């Protein structure tokens, strides 16, 4: 196909045009949100903001930062991610490594495996899980956001398959040298697992960052909401937050409205994911490939 036929040329033109339009549909909503967040209340109320801020100002952001609620929720999210990531990685490694052995090296391996996969298929659902978490006294605690999903079985399986695809000789030679399982895992396997752990860690970070639902049901006090739960609260009750705000926030409050204020905070809620997105994209696809079972 060195030269292009006319029909191919026409097709290509429409193809590029169509795909570009679809891509715009993925980007423009965010651009609009950003434009609204920087615009004046008057411009927003008269629907004159499209993709460029009208009467550029920063009041909505000033409000978000001076009001304190946004930063408090961000702090909860950061703590949650730190704790959640640690717990997730620890459990994924501790579970995936033994399960990567054959059942001749780990008796009962298939029973363990069936146990974990069973919980992936069958679950008690919302209500019983809520009852268990509240009975354990975890309501309002950061642990309620971390422990129920402490072992993401899917990520564990990805890591397990990754280990199984590594050459077996690595472990065997170490074993001949007299190294125990714990030492092998710590000294030999961990460095080799880094690329796969990066993938699994990204899954975990994005999962914890984006999860708003556990915060909604387990955090009784809105002051403990992680960021996404706070944003969800914002969608419904921003007026309430604005009314309760005072002090430093008062001057910004007068020059913004629900729409601009909400847009600014929603946009900031999306920014961290947008920043790490290029890595995400690479790792998510390779992660899926790495996790595939060897034929």
């Amino acid at each position, binding site marked *: 196909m060195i030269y292009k036929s006319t029909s191919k040329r026409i097709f290509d033109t429409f*193809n590029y045009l169509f795909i570009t339009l679809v891509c715009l549909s993925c980007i423009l*909503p*965010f651009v*609009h*949100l950003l434009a609204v967040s920087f615009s004046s209340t008057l411009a927003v109320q008269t629907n004159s903001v499209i993709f460029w801020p009208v009467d550029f100002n920063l009041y909505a952001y000033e409000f978000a930062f001076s009001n304190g609620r946004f930063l408090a929720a961000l702090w909860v999210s950061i703590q949650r991610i730190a704790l959640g990531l640690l717990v997730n990685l620890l459990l994924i490694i501790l579970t995936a*490594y033994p399960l990567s052995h054959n059942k001749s090296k780990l008796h009962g391996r298939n029973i363990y495996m069936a146990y974990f996969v069973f919980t992936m298929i069958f679950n008690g659902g919302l209500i*019983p899980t809520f009852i268990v978490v509240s*009975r354990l006294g975890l309501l309002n605690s950061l642990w309620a956001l971390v422990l129920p999903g402490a072992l993401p079985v899917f990520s564990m399986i990805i890591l397990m398959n990754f280990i199984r695809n590594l050459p077996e000789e690595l472990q065997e030679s170490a074993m001949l040298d007299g190294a125990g399982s714990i030492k092998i895992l710590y000294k030999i396997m961990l460095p080799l697992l880094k690329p796969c752990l990066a993938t699994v860690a990204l899954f975990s970070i994005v999962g914890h960052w*984006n999860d708003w639902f556990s915060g909604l049901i387990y955090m009784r006090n809105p002051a403990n909401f992680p960021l996404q739960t706070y944003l969800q609260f914002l969608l419904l009750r921003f007026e309430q937050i604005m009314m309760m705000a005072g002090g430093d926030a008062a001057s910004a409050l007068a020059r913004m409205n629900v729409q601009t204020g909400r847009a600014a905070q929603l946009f900031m809620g999306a920014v961290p994911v947008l920043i790490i997105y290029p890595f995400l994209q690479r790792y998510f*696809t390779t992660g899926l490939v790495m996790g595939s079972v060897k034929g």
Partner: protein
Amino acid sequence: MKSIVRILRKEWPLHLMLVPGVVLVFIFSIIPLYGLIIAFQRYNVAMGFGSPWVGLANFEFLFSQPDFVRTIWNTLFIASWKIVLMIIVPVFFALLLNEIRNVFFKRLFQTVIYMPNFISWVILSGIMFEILAVSGIVNQFLGIFGVQPIWFLGDENVFRWTMIFSDVWRSFGFGTVIYLATLTGIDQGLYEAAHMDGANRFKQTIYITLPMMMPIIMLMSILSLGNILNAGFDQIFNLYSPIVYSTGDIIDTYIFRVGLEQAQFSLGAAVGSFRSLISAVLIAISYYLADRFAGYRVF
């Protein structure tokens, strides 16, 4: 007995490593599963999972509620459309993207369409409230073509289509990326041979590309079977309102309202057990089919 001791002496570190995972999964997955028995009880906070038995009373009550029966239909409607479109749209898009020879643009397009996947439904909902409002930019745009303003999120006939299409919009990038990855693996010699035989690009797509994609399309379709009762809680919960309950209320949002907001734990668990059971059966079937026909082992 002796053999168990011998095995443990050798394998104990591995079994020890599994303890935390086994225990946590037991507490947060197995106990809640056992807790589903409150669906057959009248739940009482003081007695917990040992509350008085009421047999099938909760289920009888539920199925006598038109509000609940309606959620089953709504769930099936929204979920089935999502499943079907989530197969067709990514395949179609992967084929179109595959025609783009410029590597830079191909990468760029992939990156852009995959992006909304990683944004939470809370943020996307906020954006949708903004742009889909009656006076929002989407209606302003449609107004150019003389279309009357549409109440995307408040009209009960439109709401579920808004849910279906916005979810496809958010998620189709994922399938597209997967299909494109398989397309790059196709032997270029096939296309050259077809070209020699006078097949144009369209024919090559129909007779080479699509058949080569079939196994993975089958696989993705089979695996999506388990989603038939999953109409997308995160999305609908953030976008619906009482005015669209008639077409937009789904099983999961019903569980949330009745079970948690109204604190009728037994009723919530009854709906949940019904949903869990059907989903589990479907997922198990889909895993079996995926293994049988696509050679894909989930574990």
